[in-house]
């Protein structure tokens, strides 16, 4: 490849700027897509793994209702299942050997009033073991103990919204279920505020209040069942054994003979990771195939413009052959031209991909997620290789056609 030849390639592409850019649009979209998908995948993965390390992988969660091994729990679809109760949690606490801590949880939506300010938030009714299962720091005060009722612990954003910076400790707020129409509510004394936790699994962990189970279930929500029981296992090697123990205890209590008939689901964090991986993998496959289709469409654009270029430059090809170009010279010239065109598309696509990935990172961070900006060198290398390959594959036929032209016919071409 001679320098003047490469110059000619650029000159011929520049002479048809508009057409060249339109032609490589498909490549730009495809490559930008690949970069964004890989960056998002890596960002999401680091986010989820980060949250899991925060939670600890030695966590087991029991949820009411039977569900598919890999599918989401029934609650996701709005189905209320009432089979899991406080006594189940107590039984697990006393009978499961490796359970370091067990906490029962009933959740619901509530309105919280202090003075003339009312806000809506999420209620977590639980017991004093909750901080032993899910670790978090306190900003002020403390979490409730076993003997306390009529007390409440606020999430940091609830405290901010309700008290606007003044100290909430010792104040009494009124809490009522969001579905309760009449005014009033249960008066509860604030004994602690949880430090800011950020979002986790797409839920704001600061937009919550915590109350003792009996108060929350009976006086506020008016229910008798639990939404989940969380168990901390003493060591990670005991997880699978503990899952079995939990299942055994609950089946006994619920008088269930066969595991397939169980009216509850036991999951550990590892399962949750698996489910998330299945979802993200499927999503990534889908998006990657979209990017692949864009690349194929872009490749057809390349095929099209290269065919037009060969037709337009038939006389030039004839001249080149007349002054000594071999078939291989012509073939490589047109392949290089297609390769340069798609490489250009690839580079523009990479730049767009990086910019868009960065904007997404900013957005996710703005939304409170600990999102990492990851554009790996391997994804850039992949994008470059794929874009050049697209050019070479789709440029091959036009280039072969050009190289096989008979010099005399080509020179006479009008």
């Amino acid at each position, binding site marked *: 490849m*001679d320098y*003047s*030849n490469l*110059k*000619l390639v650029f*000159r*011929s592409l520049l*002479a048809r700027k508009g057409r060249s850019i339109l032609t490589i649009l498909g490549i730009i979209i495809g490559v930008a897509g690949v970069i964004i998908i890989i960056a998002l995948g890596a960002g999401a993965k680091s986010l989820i793994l980060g949250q899991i390390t925060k939670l600890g992988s030695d966590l087991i969660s029991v949820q009411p209702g039977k569900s598919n091994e890999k599918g989401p729990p029934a609650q996701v679809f709005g189905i209320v299942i009432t089979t899991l109760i406080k006594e189940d949690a107590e039984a697990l606490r006393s009978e499961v050997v490796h359970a370091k801590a067990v906490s029962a949880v009933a959740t619901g939506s509530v309105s919280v009033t202090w003075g003339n300010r009312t806000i809506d938030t999420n209620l977590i009714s639980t017991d004093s073991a909750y901080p032993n299962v899910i670790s978090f720091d306190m900003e002020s005060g403390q979490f409730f103990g076993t003997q306390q009722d009529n007390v409440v612990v606020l999430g940091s954003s609830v405290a901010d919204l309700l008290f606007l910076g003044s100290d909430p400790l010792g104040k009494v707020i009124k809490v009522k279920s969001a579905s309760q129409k009449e005014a009033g509510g249960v008066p509860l004394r604030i004994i602690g505020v949880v430090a800011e936790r950020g979002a986790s699994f797409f839920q704001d962990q600061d937009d919550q209040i915590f109350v003792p189970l009996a108060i929350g279930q009976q006086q506020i929500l008016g229910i008798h069942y639990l939404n989940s029981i969380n168990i901390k296992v003493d060591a990670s090697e005991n997880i699978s054994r503990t899952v079995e123990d939990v299942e055994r205890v609950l089946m006994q209590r619920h008088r269930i003979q066969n595991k397939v008939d169980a009216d509850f689901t036991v999951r550990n964090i590892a399962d949750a990771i698996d489910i998330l991986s299945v979802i993200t993998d499927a999503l990534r496959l889908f998006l990657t195939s979209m990017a692949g289709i864009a690349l194929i469409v872009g490749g057809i654009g390349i095929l099209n413009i290269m065919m037009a270029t060969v037709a337009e430059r038939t*006389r*030039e090809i*004839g*001249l*080149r*052959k*007349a*002054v*000594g*170009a*071999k*078939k*291989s*010279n012509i073939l490589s010239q047109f392949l290089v031209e297609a390769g340069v065109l798609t490489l250009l598309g690839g580079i523009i696509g990479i730049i767009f991909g990086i910019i868009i990935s960065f904007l997404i990172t900013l957005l996710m961070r703005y939304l409170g997620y600990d999102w990492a900006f990851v554009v790996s060198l391997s994804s850039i290398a992949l994008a470059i290789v794929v874009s050049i390959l697209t050019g070479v594959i789709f440029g091959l036929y036009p280039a072969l056609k050009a190289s096989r032209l008979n*010099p*005399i016919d080509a*020179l006479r071409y009008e």
Partner: protein
Amino acid sequence: MALIKVKNLSKKYINDGVSTPVLHDISFEINKGEFVAIMGPSGSGKSTLMHILSFLDRLSSGTYEFEGKDTKDFDDDYLAVLRNESVGFVFQSFNLLARTTVLDNVKLPLVYSKKKDHDGLAKKALDSVGLSNRLDYFTNQISGGEKQRVAIARALVCNPEVIFADEPTGNLDSKSGSVVMQILQRLNDKGSTIILVTHETDTANYAKRIIRLKDGGIISDEKVSERTIGEIVK
């Protein structure tokens, strides 16, 4: 040894099963340093003959020896090497690359050769046709006569054995045409072999030998001096 030796050369084109004979039974020799004009009315086969002689096309039957070697045995790549190293072309329609400078046009054959110092060789060739002052001009910025001189410089740049010129003055006014012919004559004086295809007598008169074709066959082949003497006697 003759530079070019053709014997019983025939050429026919086959299109959609129909065979069209273009040249038949042509024999002649051309020696190094000759200036030969191939003349004839249109359709006489003169361009086809030139294309065969310059390795752009192949003959159908007969033999063509170049520098003593039968060209029948040459493959496509070797023909490309011959077109690059042994022959130079000047076309009626110039055939210069658009959007390209004069210098880069002249360098084009060097791209496919093993020669070094492309700039130096191209500048030397342009100097020999009096265009040293147009190196960086684009081909759309120069006149027709200058374009043909660029084409001659391009034909010269690899220092070929033969220069083939196909109606080199056909697209030029008479003044530019005579400048071009004088350049070819000067090259011949320095020892280059020139083979010219034309139907213009004025142009053919620069040659020292004229081969006349009609309907695909040679009707006369004479040295210009002989012809002139013959005409005087007549």
